[in-house]
């Protein structure tokens, strides 16, 4: 948090304290259930210790599988992704079992003892590596977001007022990943200096494969991960090993990784031609739009929530594939005026960053919006600017500012702008 942001948020905090001490503020969370402390249940001995910790029975939190834009609550057989409940999360790290999930032919059940990584193509010494080989190598750990290229795809053409922020923005998560720097593996096999692209391929049934450009940025930041939030990867997220390319579209972070092949041209796989390319209004399409853009969304209050007049804390998440978030601004009057939000917790490059701002709602209908700026001075576009650039057929890489409308009853709903 910069000194400037401190200054910006301090007056509003003073205003808030004055407001609360005047006894006007309504608790946004609603009245407490226990009217007096005598109603709080008495203490009693608890459950036995166990091998691992389960959530409280009072916490209902889960991903939502869906089949495509607007195709929710489908048979799990038909689902192609499963969205993170970002409306119910706090901080910036996504719980491992709630990290969003996307796969192209299901989650394979891989035995790490039998899994192999083949490295070949334009190399001096093609190698076969085991998972234990990788775990024995020098390692790196990094907190980064992974975002599905399709995050936000609900919003290109319309705004369904029944959507939650989990529906609109649930295809992003931030975890700590641990593994071997790609650069180390490249030196190990002696990749030819003329190699400029690398095919990364998974061991799922579809053998999902993407061409990775060997830029300096990717060479210095990509790694092959075997650890996720301190434990082995979960199967849904690539067990036993996956590729992590911080800031780049989710599909490049190949799960169940089994092969790197080095070459001097992209392979033009189905995923980088027919699938993850962005159709523009003129019928041409952007290809290799690999970096995830500067983005943010207010997670509370957000779609289908209800607020009361008085104090409301606005909070949300911001992220950018270009680096650190430098600023998040919030408008509570349909973008007429913007105020700096406070960035709370860690502000890490290419990781989700939590923001918050005090807000006193006067009870009149309004719209709230957030916009982020990253350290490279990229500004999250408003919807009109994004549509002017991309049209409405792009399907992927939607990063427009998200607007939540609030009616006179305090009901929050998804609107286009």
């Amino acid at each position, binding site marked *: 948090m910069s000194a400037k942001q401190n200054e910006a948020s301090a007056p509003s905090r003073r205003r808030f304290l004055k407001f609360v001490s005047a006894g006007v503020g309504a608790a946004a969370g609603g009245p407490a259930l226990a009217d007096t402390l005598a109603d709080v249940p008495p203490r009693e001995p608890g459950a036995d210790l166990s091998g691992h910790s389960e959530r409280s029975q009072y916490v209902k939190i889960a991903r939502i599988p869906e089949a495509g834009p607007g195709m929710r609550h489908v048979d799990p057989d038909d689902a192609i992704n499963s969205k993170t409940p970002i409306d119910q999360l706090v901080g910036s790290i996504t719980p491992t079992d709630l990290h969003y999930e996307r796969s*192209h*032919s299901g989650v394979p059940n891989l035995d790490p003892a039998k899994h192999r990584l*083949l*490295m*070949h193509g334009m190399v*001096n*010494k*093609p*190698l*076969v*590596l*085991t998972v234990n*080989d*990788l775990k*024995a*190598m*020098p390692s790196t750990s990094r907190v980064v977001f992974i975002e599905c290229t399709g995050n936000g795809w609900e919003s290109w053409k319309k705004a369904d007022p029944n959507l939650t922020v989990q529906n609109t923005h649930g295809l992003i998560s931030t975890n700590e990943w641990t593994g071997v720097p790609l650069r*180390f593996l*490249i*030196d*190990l*096999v*002696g*990749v030819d*200096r003329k190699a*400029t*692209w690398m*095919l990364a391929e998974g061991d799922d*049934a*579809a*053998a999902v*494969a993407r061409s990775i*450009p*060997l*830029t*300096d940025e990717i060479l210095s930041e990509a790694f092959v991960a075997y650890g996720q939030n301190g434990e082995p990867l979960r199967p849904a997220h690539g067990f036993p090993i996956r590729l992590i390319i911080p800031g780049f579209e989710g599909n490049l972070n190949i799960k169940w990784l*089994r*092969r790197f*092949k080095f*070459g001097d*041209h992209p*392979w*033009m*796989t*189905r995923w980088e*031609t*027919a699938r993850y390319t962005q*159709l523009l*209004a*003129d*019928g*041409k*399409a*952007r*290809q*290799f*739009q*690999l*970096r995830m853009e500067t983005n943010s969304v207010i997670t509370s209050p957000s779609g289908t929530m209800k607020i009361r007049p008085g104090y409301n804390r606005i909070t949300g998440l911001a992220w950018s594939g270009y680096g650190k978030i430098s600023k998040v601004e919030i408008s509570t009057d349909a973008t007429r005026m913007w105020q700096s939000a406070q960035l709370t917790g860690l502000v890490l490059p290419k990781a989700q960053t939590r923001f918050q701002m005090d807000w006193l709602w006067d009870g009149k209908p309004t719209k709230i919006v957030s916009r982020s700026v990253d350290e490279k001075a990229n500004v999250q576009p408003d919807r009109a600017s994004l549509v002017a650039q991309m049209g409405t*057929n792009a399907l992927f890489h939607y990063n427009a500012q998200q607007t939540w409308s609030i009616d006179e009853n305090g009901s929050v709903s998804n609107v286009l702008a």
Partner: protein
Amino acid sequence: MEVSAMFSRSTVAFVIFASAAFSARAYDFGRPAAPEEIKLWDIDVHPDGKGLPPGSGSAVSGKTVFEENCAACHGPGGQNGIKDRLAGGQRTLASDHPIKTVGSYWPYATTLFDYIHRAMPYQAPGSLSDDDTYSVVAYILSLNGILPTDAKLDKETLPKVKMPNRDGLIPEPEFRNITNSR
């Protein structure tokens, strides 16, 4: 067997590595990949045809292969199925309702061989023979009017097929010419 020799070599190498971080050499980790085993996994096909196997197929036999393996999901003739539409849609890309199919959107015919060979049919990927794969590729291209209904394909002719949307994808400037400081 070689394994014990390799083990002792890597043990020696490990000691060297431990004293000089990040100076590991090949074979300090893992083992050399033999050419015969690389062939088992080296399934990718390039736009120039590199990686295409020997063999050939025809659109006529591809129709049978398609009906037996593909039509249940993609629909008869590659349309009106529960999964991706494969045919038609040409000249819709600039409309409000673009229809992306192999014929309207896919820029390279080689991608079709690569994808079917690696990922299809969904329940048993890799189960089609190379000849059957060439056949079903020829059939799907014929459904789109890109090849005649009696077309034949092999590794020489497939890369020469010009797809209608060959020039429709515009690579981002940042990733057109890759350079690095290695």
